[in-house]
């Protein structure tokens, strides 16, 4: 923590100096700038692109027809920055002396062929329609996972309302990289009940790259990448911000976030932001009973500052995520027979009373992140980007004591400290060629204490180098990339668990090739192939102990080798003014897929014999398909349908891969209520959603403790509107999740052996933007 404090101080003092470098601007008569943003390949219009005019700092998002407008701008010399996820950034310089019209072409980033871009869980409806940031504000969930979970191909591994882990096409944890503010999040991802440490209120856009994206993002991205891109900092003077309040009825949760941002007068290009949020939740409830001890609370603070001019910029970001999460009392069992009894009951034996208190077992997690980003043009040939990240993840787990009047006892503490450095150079597009090269390095140390510590102490060094090049010719874009990674881990002895000191070294190549072809103005086809790998993680190498949620004795294998995949992905997208259809299909083979398998031995303990499960490597084949349809039925009415399915199988012997998500169907209807001619109420929208999840059918009975739960259908509804009162705007929405109060168990819920999923949940959201 000391280090973080020093860095923040340094940052604040330097930030104060930076603005003095700013340029003065000559002011003349006002002019209007209009324009359109188009995809350079398909020539389709791009809604939702951010267009920022420097140094004025004015920003616009392109509307549904791709157009934007700046009215009454002082004439003068400007830089225009255009950004949209999935596209390379575009920077133009402009002498605005008269009214001007512009057409801006954005070059797609084709290697991320299967991008799904979300700015909220409802963005899927809005890929073709304009959506303001305020609208995003109105649909935010309790966790990052909840915000992501409706994207086709993305599901979440749930451990109660508070812990949700994103699963991309059946893969999660060490197989998915989360990039937060340009830095790969290094949390304690050892368990399925360890959720990403990210504030759901953080002002970011979220990008999900499905499938291996290892060339740019390293070995961890074998299953995909979730990229949290902080919203751009203001670049002009004035203070603005927003206050957001959320309330959830199911666990009587209150949550709020205050964001204040601004620039400095006389220092165009300089911007800062402070954002804090908190939430307090009580126990969740199923339709029939309270889930005891599932209360949680969270406090987050983030400070960012940056300076940006046309030649480059710097941005510094410091944040703290801190949470205390109760673990459902009924999910802790003493031994296998207890578990069998719990499964037979299917719901807790005790009837719990609702409260906000968090007792053992519970966990506390603090994640501190300091990230520094800088970019500049170099040699007049391209853009150089640097990201340094320093993060500390501190996790403690607590168990209740035999004597319930005594406070819970800390049984384990893990501290993970990570330095990471990324350097990337993107050369300017020339003759249809564009691309980048990069290096990155990680230094990581983990220290643990406690009798039940999951993993030994270790020190890890990792280095990678990559190159990625695209070639655009006519309607065809070709992509190729390669990467080399080196990973060295020193494991320190953990005598109590019989783990000896040892070194692990892994190194390998990853590669990707892709092609994107625009067959007609409506139809685009993309084909990508990628080979990726990841080293076994420390828990897969060295786990040793009983897991009290599954009554399994888990044993690592220090002789595991790397896991390698080769995959292909084919996507076709058809788009007209009122209809967009996207079909994806993929196939990935794994050599040495690491999985926890029963050994048919048992381990004797004071609590009886536990079945032993060991991390093993098997060949595996994962394949699946996703379909997404957006249809504008009427001007006011639109429909969205998404279907996702994934299957996984091992070979020799043939056996399904454990834990693949069941098939999912999502249908949404959105009705834009026509203008009521009441000035105080605007942009009223009604939304009805239906989610159907099938029963998981690809599993042998001996692979799980209980047959998968039956499929289920959930309905939710939302009404959102914008109130114009007291000279300001208030964005509100009221949502009912699980409208029919359906009793169900989700296959990906870790509590499914012991209890049902939560019942009906009313969610009220309020957001008040203020300032200039």
């Amino acid at each position, binding site marked *: 923590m000391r280090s973080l404090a*020093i*860095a923040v101080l340094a940052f604040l003092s330097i930030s104060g100096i930076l603005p003095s470098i700013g340029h003065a601007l000559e002011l003349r008569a006002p002019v209007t700038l209009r324009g359109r943003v188009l995809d350079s390949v398909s020539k389709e219009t791009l809604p939702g692109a951010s267009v920022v005019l420097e140094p004025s700092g004015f920003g616009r998002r392109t509307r549904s027809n791709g157009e934007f407008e700046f009215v009454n701008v002082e004439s003068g010399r400007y830089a225009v920055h255009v950004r949209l996820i999935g596209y390379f950034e575009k920077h133009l310089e402009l002498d605005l002396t008269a009214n001007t019209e512009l057409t801006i072409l954005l070059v797609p980033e084709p290697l991320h062929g299967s991008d799904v871009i979300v700015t909220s869980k409802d963005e899927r409806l809005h890929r073709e329609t304009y959506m303001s940031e305020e609208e995003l504000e109105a649909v935010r969930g309790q966790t990052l996972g909840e915000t992501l979970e409706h994207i086709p191909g993305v599901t979440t591994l749930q451990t109660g309302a508070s812990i949700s882990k994103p699963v991309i096409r059946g893969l999660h944890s060490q197989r998915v990289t989360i990039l937060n503010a340009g830095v790969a999040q290094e949390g304690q991802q050892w368990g399925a009940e360890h959720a990403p440490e990210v504030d759901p209120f953080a002002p970011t856009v979220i990008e999900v790259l499905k499938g291996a994206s290892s060339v740019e993002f390293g070995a961890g991205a074998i299953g995909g990448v979730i990229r949290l891109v902080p919203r751009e900092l203001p670049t002009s003077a004035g203070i603005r911000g927003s206050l957001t309040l959320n309330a959830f009825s199911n666990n009587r949760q209150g949550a709020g976030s205050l964001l204040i941002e601004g620039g400095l007068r006389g220092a165009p290009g300089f911007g800062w932001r402070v954002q804090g949020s908190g939430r307090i939740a009580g126990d969740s409830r199923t339709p029939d009973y309270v889930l005891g001890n599932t209360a949680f609370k969270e406090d987050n603070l983030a400070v960012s500052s940056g300076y940006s001019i046309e030649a480059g910029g710097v941005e510094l970001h410091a944040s703290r995520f801190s949470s205390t999460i109760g673990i459902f009392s009924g999910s802790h069992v003493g031994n296998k027979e207890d578990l069998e009894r719990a499964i037979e009951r299917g719901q807790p034996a*005790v009837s719990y009373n609702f409260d906000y208190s968090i007792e053992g077992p519970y966990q506390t997690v603090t994640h501190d992140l300091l990230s*520094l980003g800088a970019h500049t043009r170099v040699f007049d040939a391209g853009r150089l980007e640097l990201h340094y990240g*320093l993060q500390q993840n501190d996790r403690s787990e607590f168990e209740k004591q*035999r004597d319930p009047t005594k406070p819970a006892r800390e*049984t384990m503490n893990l501290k993970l400290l990570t330095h990471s450095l990324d350097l990337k150079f993107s050369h300017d597009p020339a003759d249809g060629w564009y691309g980048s090269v990069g290096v990155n390095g990680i230094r990581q140390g983990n220290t643990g204490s406690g009798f039940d510590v999951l993993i030994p102490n270790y020190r890890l060094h990792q280095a990678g180098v990559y190159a990625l090049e695209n070639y655009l010719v006519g309607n065809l874009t070709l992509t190729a990339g390669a990467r080399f990674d080196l990973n060295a881990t020193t494991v320190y*002895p953990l005598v109590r668990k019989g783990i000896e000191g040892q070194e692990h070294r892994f190194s390998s190549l990853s590669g990707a090739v892709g092609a994107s072809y625009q067959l007609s103005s409506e139809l685009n086809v993309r084909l990508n192939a990628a080979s990726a790998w990841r080293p076994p993680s420390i828990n897969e190498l060295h786990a040793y102990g009983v897991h009290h949620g599954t009554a399994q004795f888990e044993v690592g294998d220090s002789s595991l080798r790397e896991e390698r995949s080769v995959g292909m992905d084919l996507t076709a997208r058809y788009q007209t003014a009122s209809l967009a259809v996207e079909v994806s299909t993929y196939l990935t083979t794994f050599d040495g897929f690491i999985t926890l398998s029963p050994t048919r031995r048992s381990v004797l*303990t004071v609590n009886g014999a536990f079945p032993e499960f060991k991390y093993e490597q098997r060949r595996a084949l994962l394949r699946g398909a996703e379909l997404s349809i957006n249809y504008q039925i009427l001007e006011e009415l639109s429909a969205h349908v998404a279907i996702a399915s994934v299957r996984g199988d091992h070979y020799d012997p043939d056996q399904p891969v454990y834990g693949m998500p069941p098939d999912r169907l999502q249908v949404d209807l959105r009705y834009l209520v026509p203008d009521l001619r009441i000035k105080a109420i605007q942009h009223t929208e009604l939304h009805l959603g239906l989610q159907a999840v099938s029963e998981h059918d690809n599993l042998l009975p001996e692979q799980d403790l209980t047959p998968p739960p039956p499929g289920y259908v959930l309905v939710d509804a939302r009404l959102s509107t914008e109130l114009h009162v007291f000279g300001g705007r208030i964005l509100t929405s009221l949502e009912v999740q699980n409208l029919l109060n359906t009793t169900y168990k989700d296959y990906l819920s870790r509590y499914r052996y012991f209890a049902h999923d939560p019942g009906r949940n009313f969610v009220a959201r309020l957001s008040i933007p203020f300032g200039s």
Partner: protein
Amino acid sequence: MIHHTLRWPVALLLIALIASCDDPQSPNPPELEQELITHVTLRLIDSATMIDTAVATFIDEDGANGPKSPMISGMTLASGRTYLGSIHIEDRSNTSAEDISEEIRELATQHQFFYSITGEAEGRVTTEILDTDTNGLPLGLSTRVRVTPGSSTQGGYRVILSHYEKPELKTGTSQGESDIDITFPITIR
């Protein structure tokens, strides 16, 4: 040439690097105190002579998640005899040994022992619980064990300690979370 805007970040980077080079790597982490059941001793005294004693022990010094396997030693009971039984549970993993049976006695309304016989000896031994909690429900720290007369045989004497999240869950017959589940080998002569 690198633009001057990069000077500050580089300076800052150095500050951050210097300030944060204290990440720890001690190979022997400090311990947190933890309740482990390392020693379970079952002691049966012949109720007639009050001299002849049969003792069965379970020892797992490094706890359930340690690499050492538990050591279990069984006992020999005499056919046709009646014994008074007591069970003693300890945690010797911390610096000072902790008497967990004493704690169980204090929290009697949230604990109960279950005794049963497995294997060939099934039906030859009955265990009667002599102590009760404040609600009048059996506890099981002290027992009377009867061995019915018959031929020599072998089997297992199974001890389960159930721990109840709330006293309401203890009914005298229902089982809670198993804190102990040990089967001691026995021989009847």
